């Protein structure tokens, strides 16, 4: 199968200190990869590296991240802009907070679409409504006209997924997308992401500390500790038959419901 995104021996440093060491993995079309680990293990840093979001002090110091024949860390900003949003979408822990509080969801959708190509409001709205339908939003019109604070946390998160999917990117990066939500709402958001994969064939990288979420959706899992890969393999193998001591410790610390 073809490889969509290829991390090869990636090392990432902040102010000269390496925080992620020699990480390699491949993402295939339609695959869901879970990056798990504790706070500070470097899991968010890994996906930010592909998006060029490491900030002033951070950079990829070794290795390559290949996407469509290009090494992402080498690309100039202008070319990155054509990739970010259009080919690689991203959703955040708190999508409500990552949107503008003084504009409606609709206005922000028009804005993000017109950053990539010329659209008028009606066109944008038609595209968005079609997408909302595919994602089975109950009242798309209301979402379009709402400000982020008028929607619940779960609905904001689903709207964030919808905005990321507007350009139909090949890859969706999700940074702790369910961590700020209640369990019942978490399930909705996880189902939303699975639905996105089924409808659009999008590959997803989900960064989370929640083993439950990963076991519900990931095809493959990469376990990180202090920036080092502890284990990488098929989700079933890693969860049911972990080979690494740290993975075992992490899995045994998760409280499990007996039912």
């Amino acid at each position, binding site marked *: 199968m073809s490889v969509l995104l290829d991390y090869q021996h990636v090392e990432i440093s902040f102010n000269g200190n390496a925080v992620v060491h020699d990480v390699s993995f491949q993402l295939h079309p339609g695959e869901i990869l879970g990056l798990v680990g*504790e706070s500070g293990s470097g899991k968010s840093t890994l996906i930010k590296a592909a998006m060029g979001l490491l900030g002033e002090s951070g950079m990829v110091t070794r290795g390559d991240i290949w996407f469509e024949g290009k090494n992402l860390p080498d690309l100039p900003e202008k070319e990155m802009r054509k990739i970010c949003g259009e080919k690689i979408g991203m959703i955040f822990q708190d999508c409500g907070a990552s949107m503008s509080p003084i504009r409606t969801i609709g206005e922000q959708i028009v804005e993000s679409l017109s950053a990539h190509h010329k659209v008028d409001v009606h066109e944008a709205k038609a595209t968005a409504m079609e997408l909302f339908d595919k994602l089975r939003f109950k009242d798309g019109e209301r979402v379009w006209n709402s400000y982020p604070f008028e929607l619940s946390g779960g609905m904001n998160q689903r709207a964030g997924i919808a905005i990321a999917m507007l350009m139909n990117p090949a890859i969706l990066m999700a940074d702790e997308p369910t961590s700020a939500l*209640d*369990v*019942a*709402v978490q*399930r909705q958001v*996880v189902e939303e992401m699975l639905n996105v994969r089924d409808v659009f064939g999008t590959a997803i990288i989900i960064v989370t500390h929640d083993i439950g*979420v990963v076991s519900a959706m990931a095809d493959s899992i990469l376990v990180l500790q202090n920036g080092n890969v502890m284990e990488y393999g098929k989700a079933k193998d890693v969860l049911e038959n972990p080979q690494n001591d740290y993975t075992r410790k992490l899995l045994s610390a998760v409280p499990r*419901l007996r*039912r």
Partner: protein
Amino acid sequence: MEPILRVTDLSKSFSRAGKNEFFAVDHVSFDVMPGEILGIVGESGSGKSTIAKLITRQIDATTGTIEIDGQDITKLTGRQLIPVYAKIQMVFQTPTGSFDPRRTLGDGICESLRNKGVSKAEREAKARGLLEQCGLPGEFLERYPHQVSGGQCQRAAIARALMCDPRILIFDEATSALDVTVQKQIIELLQQLQKEKNLAYLFICHNLALVQQFCDKVIVLYDGKIVERGLPDEVILHPQSDYARRLVEAIF
């Protein structure tokens, strides 16, 4: 045996002009016996934290009574509450945020005893002992909140809550912000302290699996009302209410 905490018909309502009165906590009653761990579960907005604030008198109740160790504290004010706070203490969700950033952990931990007029040497000795019991070296008294990790800070917060030898501790999502491996360590610490000191816990948490592992009894809260109560295994294995059933089914 008398309950250490008895809550009867407790409500908190908020009213806004032109709108119906909104009950954040809606006629809730429960008991906590000495040495018992009671879990409260429910989604955001179900009133879990409001109950904690009512019991600790950070906000006033609209109806009902709160009794601690047989004493009605619902209407106590100011100085009358000082002896009450010697019996009931609280641990919060964000450990780092619950300490003054400009003061050392030691200042925060010793404050309750300083206010009671206990000498510096005595209170520091006690704080050192409690820190060690909570798995931190005594030198942590000199540290500032930003110099320690979240898990270490939560251990310090537990030590702070234990300074005045309370009978009951309230945990408001006290392990939710921590990594699972750290969460496990803190739970083990709480189990050990509970046995040593025969403490009662009111454990507010949205993680049903953790409640099942840790609590003696559980209350399920929805829209400010208790929709189900019982032993954790009963509630999880045989939920009676629609909401509890949905909550159990939602778990991965």
